[in-house]
């Protein structure tokens, strides 16, 4: 089993949490300490092997999404080490990250270029993505005209059709109608079952966690309080809610 994700003593502190003022900005530039720093991750260590399906459980604001953003290398850790090996594809905030004035088709190209695909590769994916999104003639309309459900459909289709090695999903499936949701779940199932794909999932739905994952990590106030198989970690999480 080879390791694809490793966090070693990772801390994450958000600077400039409130509205930035000149004083704070100068302090950031000159590396001074700030009064209102917020520690969202506290000494997080874990490692995930290739092919593992892991669910992160925790309340809102516990730091789950920050961990996902660190895995996708959007954010940098304040201290500690992060090692990620493999093409990460993240389903984070599906509705955003489009050029609103461009059509759906143009946005597919844009995404493809951003991910470093060649024109030929994008062309091959285009039909697959459009077919999966199933938004009809709207594909040639500017994204501005899309409903939020349609944006999510397109975002999801792009993300899952670009074959990932590590799939990161953050509450992405709470949008769209029932039919499309099932289609998405099936697609995720296909991706994660057929290939040697690693799945990292953040969800509040125990059902989904149980269906897709065999391991659970419970986060509370920026710390890992449990790391084990999925059933017992759901128990731990339930207990921790009840206690408060």
């Amino acid at each position, binding site marked *: 089993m080879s390791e694809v994700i490793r966090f070693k003593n990772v801390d994450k502190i958000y600077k400039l949490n409130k509205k930035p003022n000149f004083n704070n900005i100068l302090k*950031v*530039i000159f590396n001074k300490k700030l009064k209102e720093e917020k520690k969202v991750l506290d000494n997080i260590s874990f490692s995930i092997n290739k092919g593992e399906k892991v669910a992160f459980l925790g309340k809102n604001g516990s730091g789950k999404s920050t961990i996902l*953003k660190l895995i996708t*290398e*959007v954010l*940098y850790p304040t201290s500690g080490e992060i090692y990620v090996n493999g093409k990460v594809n993240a389903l984070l905030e599906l509705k955003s990250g489009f050029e609103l004035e461009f059509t759906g088709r143009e946005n597919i190209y844009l995404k493809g270029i*951003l991910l470093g695909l060649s024109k030929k590769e994008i062309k091959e994916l285009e039909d697959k993505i459009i077919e999966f999104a199933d938004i009809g003639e709207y594909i040639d309309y500017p994204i501005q005209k899309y409903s939020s459900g349609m944006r999510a459909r397109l975002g999801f289709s792009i993300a899952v059709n670009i074959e990932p090695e590590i799939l990161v999903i953050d509450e992405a499936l709470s949008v769209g109608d029932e039919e499309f949701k099932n289609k998405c779940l099936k697609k995720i199932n296909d991706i994660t079952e057929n290939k040697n794909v690693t799945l990292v999932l953040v969800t509040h739905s125990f059902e989904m966690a149980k269906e897709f994952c065999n391991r659970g990590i419970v986060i509370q106030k920026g710390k890992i309080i449990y790391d084990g198989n999925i059933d017992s970690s759901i128990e731990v999480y339930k207990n921790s809610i009840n206690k408060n």
Partner: protein
Amino acid sequence: MNEILKEHKQNFSKIFKLARIDLIKTYGGSVLGWLWAIIKPAITIFVYWFTIEIGLRSGKIRNGYPNFLWLIASTVPWFYFSEMIVGGASSIRSYNYLVTKMKFPVSTIPTIVNVSKFMIHIILEIIVIILFLINGYKIDIYFFQIIFYMLLSFMFFEMWSIFSSMIGAISKDFVNLVKSITVMVFWMSGIIWDINSISQPWIKKILWFNPIVYLVNGYRNCFINKVFFFEEPKQLIIFLTFLVILTVMAGISYKKLKKVIPDVL
């Protein structure tokens, strides 16, 4: 600095593709589309010409050239400069989804914007040359210096945009400050007047420390003044010093702010 170079090397073709998309984004949404890249400067130049020749009645000829050609030689570069002063500072901000939604080499974002604006600049300069030819002026060796000054401008605004976009990403006030200062830079940098015509020597000396003055005067050297760049060595050295300082500042701001920017955007 090393890292910035590395990011650019690795994403070389991506930068050009995205610069093209940036152009499409700027001009694609309207009915007249690309024509706006010419209409907007044309209107501005007309206004300057009207003010100077009709309003201020300062004569039809300047340095032996019709006012209109004289103005074109120096205002066309200014369009690129002004776009870059503001566009550079807000470049990361306007592309924030590249920073916060995916893994993307942040330092290439200002370059994408710069390349996109520079394309338009090249087209406009070609039009300027054509206009000079139509009006009966012949291409001489001074014309070819334009390549030198365009490269200097590109480098200067590349460094400016890396530096300013990093600061601009964490501080909106900075972007607003830059926007307000642009008007001042326009009037102070000898775009529609000639630094060589200033009589007070000490004012002239101070003005040479403005890099924009140097660049605009450079473009004018090619078309109007017919001066070689090595005939003004002192000014060139001052400019290059500024360029080096700006490069160092760009490197520092990148190094310090790279990891903070995704947190605050």
